[in-house]
């Protein structure tokens, strides 16, 4: 499977990914995917600047990311997809990305978000997106590090933010 991991992390490429995940799996290609980031030349330049630490970094829109991951070119690679928000994770699935698990990484505090843990803050729209992902039969995990357990995380979200998870 070309895409071996999809992480939703609003800090995008950062220390945990470059050091811990890169050491645990042989990542050939990190694809950062979020429409706004892909259209911001400054962020694209900077994200690509860390490529020497892995082998290849791309910054793509959701549509281009799914197109690439479903192409023959992707077959040869071990791809780590890094979406920014839960909404991006849902958009990937709706655009046709085939993956059984979506992992929640850091979701740092943003305006109108509520705390689930020290590393996960979700907005109402984020919870609604995760609910749809869950209802599509996709397993949601919450692993900052590769060593974290891959337990189903939706019940925690439902329990912590019931007003939005309904």
């Amino acid at each position, binding site marked *: 499977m070309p895409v071996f991991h999809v992480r939703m992390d*609003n*800090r*995008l*490429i*950062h*220390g945990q990914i*470059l*050091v811990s995940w890169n050491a645990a799996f042989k990542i050939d290609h990190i694809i950062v995917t979020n429409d706004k980031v892909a259209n911001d030349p*400054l*962020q694209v*330049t*900077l994200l690509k*600047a*860390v490529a020497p*630490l892995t082998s290849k970094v791309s910054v793509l829109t959701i549509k281009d990311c799914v197109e690439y991951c479903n192409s023959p070119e992707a077959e040869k690679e071990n791809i780590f997809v890094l979406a920014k928000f839960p909404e991006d994770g849902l958009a990937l699935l709706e655009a046709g990305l085939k993956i059984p698990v979506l992992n929640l990484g*850091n979701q*740092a*505090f*943003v305006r109108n978000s509520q*705390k689930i843990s*020290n*590393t996960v*803050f979700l907005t109402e729209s984020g919870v609604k997106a995760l609910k749809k992902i869950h209802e599509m039969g996709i397993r949601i995990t919450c692993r900052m590090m590769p060593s974290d357990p891959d337990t189903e995380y939706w019940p925690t979200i439902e329990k912590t933010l019931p007003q939005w998870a309904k």
Partner: protein
Amino acid sequence: MVGIVLVSHGSMADGMLDAARMIVGDQEGIMAINLEEMDDVEGLIEKITAAVEQIDTGDGVIVLVDVFGASPFNASARLTMTRGNMEVITGMNLPMLLELAIHRQGANLEELIKIALDAGSSSIKTLSDTLNSK
């Protein structure tokens, strides 16, 4: 005088400043920013921007960060690329900071960047090599 901002994961930046104080005394125009688990990059950029605005006397600012490619670096880099008269140096260590503190009077931004890079890398050595080279 060139300003210095330290940005790290956890409390390393605070600790670095604390350690430097023990060796070279209190320093003006040096600030430490610690990335907490819950911080996002945009919030971190705001904190760094506020620190830079506060300490930049017009001579420029050097930002020392811990790890290349990580959030403290990413946030500092995004500010530097839009603001100018700044440089980001990765792999911060105490010898690097000490040399900067000692040479800040009278040195310009370019000179200090070279001093920091030299001090940072030349301070890494083993005891064995040091003894054998005698």
